[in-house]
């Protein structure tokens, strides 16, 4: 059943026939030394998704069914700000066709995801010293890509580990990546490997992309009593500040006492009225309550508590309840330990939105007539959707 691609004589003949192809002239994947192997020899990873943990930290999740005896872990390919790769989001990169022949476009696309192993911005150029592997980068003598094998309970795939013995995975695994810069678009694939990574699967996982969010922690907000005396958060200005870097990602709550209406007031209103704190959006901002989470927006909440996805707005400012968002000027009760999605229009036509997440870390409501204090964590969206 396990018929290595390299050993099929007819493929050698075919390789010779195709030797004039520009693809094969100077590449290492000549037919006598293929590196992508057929599905029946090595199963590919699938179901890749990304959890954005903020400030450039992400967690990749994928599924595998790799009980191959000589399975040796996964290679992770990544690239920053590459439109060609991003256009493939949700699709796999096929390296072999149904007949087992290399697909040049697949290899070319994968080569664009060959970063230099140190940062995600710089394309990698290194090749393996023995020049055997056509689909570089790889790991063996050098760690050029993050590579990992399932560890411990087989869930955590620890980056930087190299396979020294057969390992298996029959389910889901994850690995954490750090050092991404909020605001850039990063795309990844996971590739299963065989024989100390000298062979890779015939297909990558799906391409998964993320624009990492920035984080503002421990934002103290004081709110004066009265619906017309809100404190406002300028999330658009915050977004601009965060684009400059983590150190600049700050916001100062503004007092807006004596306003006419939050609907016409810039920024997101936080107000106190009818004995309750409220969020109140304006003509470009809507709010959705994502529910109660004691631990905030943590990996544990995401994994164990079914942290909800926010629904995107399909039409702004329609009757209440559309897509679960408030309408302009409509107050939404603000509660301790709740997570809120704040949709802010990215354009005047209100056809795309930034979806910031706000977690109410601490809330102290006082009797009517006094100021209220609360502490917020903001996960700033750096991409409009």
């Amino acid at each position, binding site marked *: *059943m396990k018929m290595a691609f390299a050993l099929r004589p007819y493929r050698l003949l075919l390789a010779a026939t195709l030797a004039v192809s520009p693809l094969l002239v100077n590449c290492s994947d000549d037919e006598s030394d293929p590196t992508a192997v057929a*599905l*029946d020899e090595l*199963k*590919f990873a*699938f*179901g890749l*998704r990304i*959890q954005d943990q903020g400030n450039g930290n992400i967690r990749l999740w994928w*599924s*595998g*069914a*790799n*009980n*191959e*005896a000589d399975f040796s872990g996964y290679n992770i390919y990544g690239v920053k700000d590459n439109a060609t790769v991003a256009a493939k989001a*949700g699709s796999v990169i*096929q390296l*072999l*066709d*149904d007949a087992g022949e290399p697909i040049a476009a697949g290899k070319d696309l994968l080569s664009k995801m060959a970063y230099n192993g140190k940062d995600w911005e710089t394309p990698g150029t290194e090749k393996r010293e023995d020049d055997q592997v056509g689909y570089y980068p790889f790991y063996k003598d050098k760690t050029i890509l993050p590579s990992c094998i*399932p560890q411990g*309970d*087989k*869930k955590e795939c620890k980056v930087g580990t190299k396979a020294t013995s*057969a390992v*298996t995975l*029959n*389910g*889901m695994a994850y690995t954490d990546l750090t050092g991404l810069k909020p605001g850039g678009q990063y795309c990844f694939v996971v590739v299963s490997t065989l024989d100390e990574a000298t062979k890779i699967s*015939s*297909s990558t996982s799906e391409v998964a992309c993320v624009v990492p969010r920035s984080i503002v922690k421990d934002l103290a907000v004081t709110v004066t009593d009265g619906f017309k005396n809100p404190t406002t958060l300028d999330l658009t200005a915050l977004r601009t500040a965060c684009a400059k870097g983590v150190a600049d990602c700050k916001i100062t709550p503004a007092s807006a006492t004596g306003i006419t209406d939050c609907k016409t007031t810039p920024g997101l209103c936080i107000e106190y009225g009818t004995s309750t704190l409220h969020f109140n959006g304006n003509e470009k901002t809507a709010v*959705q309550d*994502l*529910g*109660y989470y*004691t631990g905030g927006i943590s990996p544990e909440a*995401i*994994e*164990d*508590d*079914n*942290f*909800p*996805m*926010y*629904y995107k707005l399909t039409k702004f400012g329609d*009757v*209440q*309840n*559309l*897509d*679960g*968002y408030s309408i302009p000027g*409509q107050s939404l*009760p603000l*509660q*301790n330990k*709740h*997570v809120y999605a704040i949709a802010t229009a990215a354009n005047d036509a209100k056809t795309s939105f930034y979806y910031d997440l706000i977690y109410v870390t601490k809330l102290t409501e006082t009797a009517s007539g006094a100021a209220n204090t609360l502490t917020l964590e903001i996960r700033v969206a750096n991409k409009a959707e």
Partner: protein
Amino acid sequence: MLFKLWTRKTQVTTFISTLVLPATLGLFGCDGDTTDPATAGIDDLNPPGDVVSITRDGKIELRWSAGNVEEDFKGYYVFGIKKADYDAKAKGKATYPKGKANPEVAGIPRCKDNSAFFEAFGLPKSETDCEGAPEETAATSTGTKLTADTPTDAAAEKLTGFLSCDEEKANTTPSRPRPADNKPVVTPQTCTVSKLADKDKTALANGTTYAFVVVAVADDDFSKISWTSKVIFDTPSATVLANATDKAKPYELTFPAFTSTDSKKFKITLDPTTSKATLGAIEDCSGATDSEPCSALSKKNGLSTATSDIYISRNAVGTYLQRLYISAPAGGSVIIQPRGPQTYDPFKAEKTADGRIPGDAAAKEFPTTEFGTKYVIYNNQIFDLEITKSNVKYYGKVFIGDVTYGTGTGSAMTATVKINVVLQPGAGIKHYALEPKALD
């Protein structure tokens, strides 16, 4: 492809009648015939991975990841028995791999040392020696559950030749590279179980917990089975307020267009001890104001206060005449906990019709011990329920689906709320799908 649900009573008979071809050798053991399937090694036949379940009304939906590219792969068998039988006959009976056999955590092979476990699920006694069973280390693979935010590509990749346990699904063109025979599956699988495979085809009963394992099957005569998946437990639970003709669809509460003094309410009375909910007729909600809207918290509305009632209401007075509320009285026994839009099924990449999702569970904590809460209703929301009766806590949830309005503006619009109410089948049960760790 074949799916087959095995149960304790008649599976051997069914097995014999279904599989008639001679035996072939398994990877270890020589007992591979149609009545006594051999276990294939893990690198010979990939076992199902990451089995999870979704609790449904009178049904259990099983999902697992698959990596079956074997040329002789045929499909899957799903084995199911009552948990009571599992506890009596299977629990703790598997001993291979030595020192770490725990089928509630990871799969096991069918062989002599594990025979009692498989016999509980209806397979004949095995005399095959377990020693030498391949890939012992693979038994430690636990994987993890598919959770609500686990995206998969199942929606885009319907499976060639795939049959669910309840119905055959249409084939579509696979988008993955496959061998020429087009047989393998390397994608998530699903199987909804609604009845046992005994001669009476007994329906799964709400409130009864069942144990399931899944194996891959290979060879033309189906004489090889893989190591098992881990055992998964689940208890079907009733949707106690649902569409009368199709329980998979939500009930629809309609508030008529009204004049400015006609706030309206529906009362839903919950009885967690019998897992029942009773919906009352629409009623007037007199005396509602903008600052004290129609809800269970308003003393003006004449609502009962000492019951396990919840209310769905619509205010006729105030700034937002479309505004809808869910509420429970301060003197009652129900705490409402908003959970946000936990209504998305990532496996199918769509909103659920009934709010049942993988890994479904009530909130770990409730934010208050005070009774009497009121929340605004928006589209696609879950509200958890904690109901105290005779000092015992019960759990459930209210699913709010689409909220739609008629033509007009403000009070001139009708408002229709799609709603399901689910109550757990017993006291203290937070997790709809009973996790193995909860058994200890």
